[in-house]
């Protein structure tokens, strides 16, 4: 289906083009406007992302390759693009007042966010290892900067630097893996790799196998699987909270989009091998993420470990290498995006200038003072813990039942047990909010939750909370779209 006319080729990457142009406009506006009124930047970024989302939704159902098969638009790429753009839009809503309050350079902030989203959409559309690499870099470099952006706090630049160093390390590993693969099979095209994989496997070509291993490491870093997760707590804690929210869901989803495309689909002939590696990575991530989260006092750090565990749950579904498994992973990523964004939204709403008020004890007695935020947080925590009727339960249900169907019973058992462990640290937030009295005279009891946080945060909280309840009760809708996203790809399995 290769098309060579330029307009047709450009229509395949239309969302990326919209995002990139919007990013440039933002940058230009930043130069033109005085620092006092940066509002146009936000609006431009918002409507640009909205347009990209509309463009993606409009091309739902089309299947096209372009630029010498470097990119490929299909329902799977569209599904992921919808997740990225949805996350982007909600992040923008969460950012507006936060950026003003923390005095972040708004123009650069929104520009970097948009460029990062551009990279993500490229990742979702990658049909060639070169596109994979380019996408990852376009996504990552802006995020490194975003993490380090809160220069007032010493933690933020440190986090950015750590993330940059380790990210560079992981990129190098990934690139080296691509080089080895190219050396083994002479191509970077995913379709060609799929065609040549059986031969390479038969010969047990060490170049090929090592290349795959290095690819796994590079992608495992992006989705923060144990043992490639070490940067996560530091980066999540130090980054501006809105950036943490964005990273924890969008970057992770983007990482999974290439993991699914490259490993699960294009390397399906060697599923026997990588599924065992997935098994271990999933178990390690679930155990370490959930167990270490138990003792965290900082809610951003707690959610960082929680995100490691959730990457483990997604990997449980992918370990199966079946259509049901990928289907479950797509559903999980969508739901996880909503609930994690919501949780970070509450963190933003509750925090004070200088990223204060992010310790769990700062939530003491919050239910009295801000009952609606507490209620929303309760929904997100229940959902993250996987309690029905929230969507989090549906996500876990699909993931674990896919594992059981494929015969990975023990993996599902470990997953369920670790979910039980996770209930402790999620529900602890509820206990603190609902069952503890605010300490008299403590700094935070003076009304830390009274600061104006802008309508955007409230709106996104309610959108997330209601969507979670909606998907928890009527999951068929999401399941239907996830099923469509896999159409035409299952023949690869």
């Amino acid at each position, binding site marked *: 289906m290769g098309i060579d006319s330029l307009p047709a080729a450009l229509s395949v990457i239309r969302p990326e083009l919209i995002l990139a142009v919007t990013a440039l406009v933002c940058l230009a506006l930043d130069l033109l406007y005085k620092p006092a009124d940066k509002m146009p930047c936000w609006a431009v970024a918002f409507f640009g992302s909205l347009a990209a989302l509309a463009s993606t939704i409009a091309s739902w159902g089309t299947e096209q390759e372009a630029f010498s098969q470097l990119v490929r638009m299909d329902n799977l790429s569209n599904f992921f693009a919808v997740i990225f753009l949805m996350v982007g839009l909600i992040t923008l809503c969460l950012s507006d007042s936060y950026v003003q309050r923390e005095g972040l350079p708004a123009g650069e902030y929104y520009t970097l966010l948009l460029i990062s989203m551009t990279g993500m959409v490229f990742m979702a559309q990658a049909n060639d290892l070169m596109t994979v690499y380019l996408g990852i870099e376009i996504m990552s470099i802006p995020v490194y900067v975003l993490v380090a952006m809160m220069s007032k706090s010493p933690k933020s630049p440190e986090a950015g630097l750590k993330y940059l*160093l380790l990210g560079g*390390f992981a990129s190098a590993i990934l690139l080296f893996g691509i080089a080895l693969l190219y050396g083994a099979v002479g191509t970077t095209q995913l379709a060609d790799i799929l065609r040549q994989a059986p031969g390479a496997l038969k010969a047990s070509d060490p170049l090929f196998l090592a290349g795959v*291993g290095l690819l796994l490491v590079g992608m495992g870093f992006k989705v923060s699987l144990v*043992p490639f997760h070490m940067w996560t707590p530091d980066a999540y804690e130090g980054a501006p909270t809105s950036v943490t929210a964005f990273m924890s869901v969008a970057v992770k989803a983007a990482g999974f989009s290439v993991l699914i495309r490259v490993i699960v689909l294009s390397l399906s002939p060697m599923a026997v091998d990588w599924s*065992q*590696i997935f098994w271990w990575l999933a178990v390690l991530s679930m155990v370490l993420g959930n*167990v270490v989260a*138990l003792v965290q006092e900082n809610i951003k750090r707690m959610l960082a470990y929680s995100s490691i565990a959730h990457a483990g749950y997604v990997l449980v579904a992918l370990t199966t290498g079946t259509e049901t498994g990928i289907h479950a992973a797509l559903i999980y990523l969508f739901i996880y995006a909503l609930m994690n964004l919501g949780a970070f939204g509450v963190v933003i709403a509750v925090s004070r200038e200088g990223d204060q008020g992010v310790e769990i004890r700062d939530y003491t007695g919050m239910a009295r003072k801000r009952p609606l935020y507490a209620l929303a947080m309760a929904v997100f925590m229940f959902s993250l813990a996987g309690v029905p009727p929230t969507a989090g339960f549906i996500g876990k249900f699909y993931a674990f039942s896919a594992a059981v169907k494929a015969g990975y019973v023990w993996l599902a058992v470990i997953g369920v047990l670790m979910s039980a462990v996770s209930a402790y640290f999620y529900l602890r937030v509820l206990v603190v909010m609902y069952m503890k009295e605010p300490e008299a005279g403590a700094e935070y009891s003076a009304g830390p939750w009274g600061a104006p946080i802008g309508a955007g945060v409230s709106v996104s909280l309610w959108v997330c909370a209601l969507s979670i309840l909606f998907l928890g009760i009527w999951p068929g809708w999401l399941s239907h779209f996830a099923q469509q996203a896999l159409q035409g790809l299952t023949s690869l399995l």
Partner: protein
Amino acid sequence: MEEAIVFPYLRWIPLLPLIGFLINGLGARADLTPARVRRIHWIACLAPFGSFLISVFAFTKLLGLPAEGRLLTDTVFTWIAAGNFTANLTFSLDPLSSVMTLVVTGVGFLIHVYSIGYMHGDGSYSRYFSYLNLFMAMMLVLVLGGNLLLLFLGWEGVGLCSYFLIGFWYEDPEKAYAGLKAFVVNRIGDFGFLLGLFLLFWSLGQKGVWTIEFGSIQEHVHLLSPAVITAVCLLLFMGAMGKSAQIPLYVWLPDAMAGPTPVSALIHAATMVTAGVYMVARMHFLFIASDFAMHWVAWTGAITALFAATIGVCQNDIKKVLAYSTVSQLGYMFVGVGVGAYAAGIFHLMTHAFFKALLFLGAGSVMHAMGNETDIRKMGGLRKKMPWTFWTFIVATLAISGFPPFSGFFSKDEILWQSYSSHFGSTALWAVLWIAAAVTSFYMFRLVFLTFFGEPRDAHLHEHAHESPAVMTVPLALLAVGAAAAGLVGIPASWGFTNLFEHFLEPVVGGLPHGAHVSHAVELLFVGLSIAVAFAGLFLAWWFYLRSRELPERLAGRYARLYDLVYNKYYVDELYDALFVRPIRNLSEKFLWKIFDAGFIDNGLVNGTARFFQRSARSLRRIQVGDVQGYAFAMVVGMLAIIGFLLL
């Protein structure tokens, strides 16, 4: 069997009180304005009245059908469907449930009305009436349920309401405890009942018939072995012993008098406690198939009848006397159904509903007048002060003691006669009941004489005594009409009339299993003996409590041991306490709670798991030291492991 006729109004009989319950239960407000009070009791009373009207309508419709085809059904929806087993939410009305429905809604409605006066000014007015309505709904589900599952639902539902209402004034720990006791004792019976249900369901299923509908159980009962039938019957009867307060599970009923008096009248006299009798009659096809079960039921009833009656003699609390009397009369009913005279048992159930409800409401009226005093030794001479209460009480007493032509005479006499003449009866059985009848007459007139005759023993209380308002006395009068005349529908055939009641029920429970043929002359002789014994009780009570009043004390002094034994209710409560309550409590507290639960489960399993994870978390977090070199090292280790795995 003829096809049942669909009668879609049936569902409204239990539904109306349920709606009343929801309105009053959910709409409860703390501040009771007179307008709210009126709204509460209007809703609460109209609901059972509506049910009563539908019941009457259904009853007339039933009468219009040929005797063999008297069955109305109303299927609301399919409740459970699993494989070839389905359970529908079906209400069905046959002559047996029609009698029960009329009694429950009719007597129930009057008691609701009476409650308006009795509960006037209570802070939990709305809660009271919502519970009462819920009880009505559950009782009607019990009697109208077309299958065992619905019967069980109602059975548990009325038990729950009974618990709510006994402990209605829960601020008083003694009353709350009485509610708890009723619940726990009933659970013991219900445990057996449930086992019986399972056994019946499972053993029929083993024969390929998965059903809980009464009709199809009856059709397939021949598939079961006699041993299974006996076991099922005894287990089901265990439930009846709890619910209908038979030995050994009767102990909760006297304590249940802690509830408001109209509750005692409705639940603990007229309706709920008779559920066991209804259940045995409903399952008659099972019981009749087991001689052992029949004898067991009859003898349990007879012994309970005499045992409880003797306790009644020495009680000084007006409600306690009536409570033991109820236990005793329930014993009579079980003798009736236990000797196969189902119609007679249900007949006594109906007449008893009238006269015992009347007695309780009369007692309530007296308590109302005496500032909630219940000790009959402080009463006396109320005859003039409360003429309505007095005369209706007299009617009820004559009825329960078995004076013709009051209702109790006919029903009790029928049971007495059947206990002798039936296939399952014997002279011994009859003799026990006959003595119990004498005791009944004695303790009832003792109650009447001490309460209403003689001189006032407490001048202060007497001074303030007054007749109750019309909202209470009118229900008394209506019930008195029933207590006096309800027996006329069941005049025995030997008197030359047709026994209408027996004929009405015959299609459901079958004819009487007659023993040896006995002449009418003998039957009339037994009627004479019954009447004689009623008069004997009256005479003795008069002699003891009106003529030579020092006699009871003298006798009590002379036979002090015997008197103490009976006065203390044969020490049954103390016995149970020593045998069951305290050992179980000790086991629960000292071992199950403190050692097993707190020590092993809580501290070992639950906290142990938590401690394990806390410790693991503390050691695992140390990996995260913060320097990038360490992080990169972890990645390298992971990378080497993966490549190693793939290459090797």
